[in-house]
């Protein structure tokens, strides 16, 4: 199983779509690794720079509602994966993006609006980081000398996919 956590990248907007995560013009790449430089290239958000060190070093993404809406492209989870971001935390996800994350053995974690607000209260801290324990369903956020913990739920199936490292081997064994 992948380990989940690291410096947090805060994307303070709802409805961040798959075209913003990885523009269609890069869908012609044949390997996941080739996607790496194009992470969030078209996302226009105040204070956000796709090329900054903070973006490149992040290990977890935190965002608002309906994250990953739009196309079915699994390139969206992949571009996070090859950049070492194995978890996205949001108030809600588009269905296909959420499933794609778990199918790749990554985590799409849904929290309440209040919990997301709490996480965003750490956005100002340069050292904001989140540790996630997928099996226990808990996470800890630290930054600016503060620390807070919260719990979350993911479905048993999604958890099984994370533990199995993805859906292909799981399904081929079972069906």
């Amino acid at each position, binding site marked *: 199983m992948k380990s989940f956590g690291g410096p947090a990248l805060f994307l303070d907007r709802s409805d961040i779509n798959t075209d913003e995560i990885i523009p269609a013009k890069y869908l012609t790449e*044949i390997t996941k690794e080739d996607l790496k430089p194009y992470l969030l290239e*078209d996302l226009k958000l105040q204070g956000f720079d796709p090329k900054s060190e903070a973006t490149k070093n992040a290990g977890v993404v935190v965002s608002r509602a309906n994250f990953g809406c*739009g196309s079915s492209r699994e390139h969206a989870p992949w571009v996070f994966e090859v950049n070492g971001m194995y978890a996205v935390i949001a108030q809600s996800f588009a*269905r296909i993006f959420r499933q*794609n994350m778990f199918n790749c053995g990554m985590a799409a974690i849904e929290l309440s609006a209040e919990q997301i607000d709490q996480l965003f209260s750490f956005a100002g801290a340069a050292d904001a980081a989140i540790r996630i324990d997928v099996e226990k369903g808990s996470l800890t956020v630290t930054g600016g000398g503060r620390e807070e913990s919260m719990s979350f739920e993911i479905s048993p199936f999604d958890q099984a996919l994370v533990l199995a490292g993805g859906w*292909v081997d799981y399904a081929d064994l079972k069906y």
Partner: protein
Amino acid sequence: MGMTTAQKIFAAHLVDEPFAGTKVLNIDVVMCHEITTPIAIADLMARGKDRVFDAGKIKAVIDHVTPSKDSKTATQAKMLRDWARRHQIKDFFDVGANGVCHALFPEKGFIRPGNTVIMGDSHTCTHGAFGAFAAGVGTTDLEVGILKGVCAFREPKTIRVNLNGTLPKGVYAKDAILRVIGHLGVNGATDRVIEFAGPVVAAMSMESRMTLCNMAIEAGGTSGICMPDMVTVEYLWPFIAEAFAGKEEALAAYGAWCSDADAQYEQVIDLDLSELAPLCTFGYKPDQVKNVTEMAGTVVDQVYLGSCTNGRLEDLRVAAAILKGKKIAPGVRAILSPATPQVYKDAAAEGLIEIFMDAGFCVTNPTCGACLGMSNGVLAEGEVCASTTNRNFMGRMGKGGMVHLLSPATAAASAIEGKLADPRKYL
């Protein structure tokens, strides 16, 4: 207790419920295109699992960028082509026979009421127009679909949308679905099936129903669904005539998939469309919808007519009726991509292609092309496009471009004026 169409399909296709709330279904039709499938193929090969569960149930097409525009897209096409050959997938559509997947596959009669359908493409929801459960999936789900013929879903709840009244003149399925998305919002139907019903749907052609279901995903929906009726049977008849003694018998068989009268819905929405005006989007989200009259005068650089939403013969007829004998405005460029070779051929036979060309349209081969900003009409920074497609995300048709989603009629009127325009004055 009664069941919805989606519940019936889930019950009939259930293979396993590994955990409460997760249902693994067997899949009747697995569709593939050259953007999302090659990576699945490569991964299967790397795992030593280069197999297909049933070549007869797999359909494949090169449609997103075709004919290939560069080495990379040529490689993607080749990977799909070689794979289809290797596994003897006979329903494979290459250059010359290819068209936009969600228009081409229905036209070939591949989708039947009660089917489960997946594809590595979010607009797979289109096929729900036939009373099927049709869901877009990612590459991994597609890969498992190819290998094992199964897919896992959370059983979706159903939102029923009753479209009441009658569509006024100049108002079409595209306006109806924009109205629905405006009502639901971009995630109002996440993990939900949208069941379209009511007199407006009953009066619609299969083409129009596909336009409706096509954009269910723009409200977050897993699948759109229209219940099968005589319109469905008539459309499918050339493909099913041998299986049934008559159309009534087919209707009775397919009708079994219709939602029961006492089915439970999570939500029922009633919209009266009798007063609906032509609509268009104004922002970067498909739920940002206004009457075209409010946007009239917005200058456009390009008009695009095509895609899995509105590139069918019915759409071309509506637009051509408005364009007949007219010219597009100076300074605007207009592009038509008929969604399939059959649409192209029929449009030519009816004289529609000539009308478009006389008006000043560029007519391209059937392809997704500009719809996702990959080829054949990509926008430049700051350009504005009046488009019959389904997605207006920032950068969708080209970095820095602005897309206004609208009906083929509104696209035609906008081409004539070079500005967003109300089509009703041309009817």
